[in-house]
């Protein structure tokens, strides 16, 4: 079984993001970039499927700048088998990403796509769903547990108010939530092995997909500063306040 894992290069989760003075976006100059944490989880899950003998090959795809090769290398060092980088100058929008992935899937014919539920830069939470729709494949989002057999996946999903378990037939798109697993670190021997693994370099044009933006960013601003809290004298006052704020 072949598993495809899309991975994105994003601002490292430890970095305090700053808005550019001209409000056109966030400042990326000299900022540490890493693999989207949810994509690390997706990669880990795919590699585990391979270690269990369920998957035979794990292919990672990234859409982004040349440096996204490093992100792919990290996935290869975690245990993925080979990579595909589709080089784009600008940050592709979710729909363009989904279309590109669909085109890759047409070539690669994986039985399963495991991907992060969202990228922590835009927090869109859209590509997985869009991709499943474009492919007309079943989808199971926010997975916290995954079991795969030859023709179906049993997925436990995190939903408001609890967990839901469902079966999807393959091929399918699964998106990973935080608690699916704890990704491994790229060990030295695996970093060395990853060096010899292949990364195919592509462009959006190779797949005939138009990635020009359809959305226009008007302005990017910092979230409003949190105002100071207040002290209440006792529980009764607290309950009163919560009621008057409409929380209770």
């Amino acid at each position, binding site marked *: 079984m072949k598993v495809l894992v899309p991975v994105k290069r994003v601002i490292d989760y*430890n970095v*305090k993001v700053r808005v550019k003075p001209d409000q056109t976006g966030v400042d990326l100059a*000299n900022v*540490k970039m*890493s693999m989207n944490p949810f994509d690390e989880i997706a990669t880990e899950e795919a590699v585990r499927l391979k270690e269990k003998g369920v998957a035979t090959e794990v292919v990672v795809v990234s859409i982004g700048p040349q440096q996204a090769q*490093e992100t792919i*290398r*990290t996935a290869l*060092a975690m245990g993925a088998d080979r990579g595909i980088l589709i080089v784009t100058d600008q940050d592709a929008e979710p729909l363009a990403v989904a279309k590109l992935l669909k085109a890759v899937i047409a070539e690669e014919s994986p039985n399963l796509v495991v991907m992060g539920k969202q990228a922590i830069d835009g927090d869109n939470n859209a590509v997985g769903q869009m991709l499943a729709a474009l492919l007309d494949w079943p989808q199971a989002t926010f997975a916290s547990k995954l079991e795969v057999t030859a023709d179906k996946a049993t997925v436990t999903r995190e939903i408001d108010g609890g967990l839901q378990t469902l079966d999807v037939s393959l091929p399918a798109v699964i998106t990973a939530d935080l608690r699916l697993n704890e990704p*491994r*670190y*790229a*060990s*030295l*021997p695996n*970093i*060395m092995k*990853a*060096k010899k693994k292949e990364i195919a370099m592509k462009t959006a044009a190779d797949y005939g997909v138009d990635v020009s933006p359809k959305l226009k960013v008007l302005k990017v601003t910092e979230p409003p500063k949190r105002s100071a809290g207040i002290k209440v004298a006792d529980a009764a006052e607290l309950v009163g306040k919560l009621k008057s704020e409409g929380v209770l």
Partner: protein
Amino acid sequence: MSLILSRRDLDFLVFEWLDAAALTSRERYQDHSAETFHQVLDTCEAIATDHFAPHNKLNDQNEPQFVNGGAVTIPEVKRALAVYSEAALIAPGQLYEYGGMQLPALLEKACAVWFRAANIATSAYPFLTAANLNVIAAYGEDWQKERFIPPMTEGRFFGTMCLSEPQAGSSLSDVRTRAVKQDDGIYRLYGTKMWISGGDQDISENIIHLVLARSPDGIPGVKGLSLYIVPKFLVNEDGTLGERNDVVLAGLNHKMGYRGTTNTLLNFGEGGHRPGGEAGAVGYLIGQENNGLACMFHMMNEARIGVGSGAVALGYTGYLHAVDYAKSRQQGRPNGAKDPTTPQVALTRHTDIRRMLLAAKSYVEGGMALALYCARLVDEERTAQTPEARVEAHLLLDMLTPIAKSWPSQWCLEANSLAIQVHGGYGYTRDYNVEQFYRDNRLNPIHEGTHGIQGIDILGRKVVMQGGAGLNLFNATLEKTVARAKASGDETLAGYAGELHAALDRLNAVTATLHAINDQERTLANASVYLEAFGHITVAWIWLEQALAALGKAGDFYDGKRQAARYFFRWELPKVYPQLDLLETLDDTTLEMQEAWF
């Protein structure tokens, strides 16, 4: 931004200054690339952040306990070290055949400092293990390598270094632990070792002690010492654990810092266990009899540079904590602005705070650069193109070892003190981290040859070894940098070059004066002052090197480098003159002082 270390600075030193990428053309390192180096550093930063830093304080607050004859540590240590060994970080610089990844020493050092800074106590276990297995790899017999090295690189066995004894600390010639040879060529050891780090713990399956002991022929002094492998549990031919050896934990030392590392008093051969039915700790000779100290020195040079880089790491993380605090703490107003209705300013607005942070920056970044430079010399020593170049690298490293050990132990400790000062009262409490960094770092001028011993090493041995060849090489190396700075076209750097050259000339003159008299005791009387002056001149050179590497590059990072270089040349280098003046007079104030007058 990480408060453990600055990746930006490491990238500057490793890639921009010391040109790590060039090492990949050497046969030993040819499987690597700049990209794998970056990835390895990513892994180290991630593991240090996720698994080492979080229990640093816990380690400090929960010293190992003596329970039923063994040392018990907190579970976080074992977990962190499992992740560490799984990533193959125990001996990444070793040859493939010994389970290593042939990572250059430069990168190995840049990796190591992450763990030293994040949690010095937990990191001590694998670092001792690496030092230990490096000795076995260098001097061990094949069966010893096969039996002991793989379980150490896998993190199943840890190693120790057992040199010190209650009556033999600085003076190893007084070691009393003795070895007796059996008919089968195996030895039995009897004696007591003091201060042994990691001498017992509940983290690894087994502990491999490397023990310095007096050979059966009993020659006095260091010439009668041999080195033995003494496992806690004997290891069968198939690698399984055998009988418990006669090594017994007699007690734990309760330390000022480094508390998470067990520190032990060990009894060998007192009959606590009876392997093969008799008392005596079973030991296997490494290398030749009576050549133990030479083998140990292989590890000791490495260990000394390791101590220096540990001191840098602790100073560095303290500095980063202080900068972070100073940026966010609001206190007072600038000198002259006394209107109490205006908002208070950040500490960084006060010049005296900037002075302290700048001093600390110049110490920790200077120390880091020195440590990495020495690591780069190890790579030259191993892989330089010509035998002459390899010999030269070895000689320079030998020369710089006492400086690489002592300078950071003194000045990066000072950075830790400044970090407390920047925090004010908060820094003196255990709610913040900086007091622990200070206590942890206070060990470094003491172990692996005290400050005093390093002074005697540089002045008594190093500057006169091989007829002064080491000192000549040191001079030539600094002069090359001076020439480059003068030719750089940058007036400021040319000025620093002149100042460095003048200080170097003065150092040479004073060195000649000190050795012109035929009285060792007087020559060496003020050796630790000489050590300090030598160290400051060395680090001034290292700062000039960094300033050259930053030349023509713009931005806050490089401006910061330039300002720190300026600080070092204006404020620190001139400190050597009064020291050299004093030394030149062959001052005997301390020499003449009598015990009865105290």
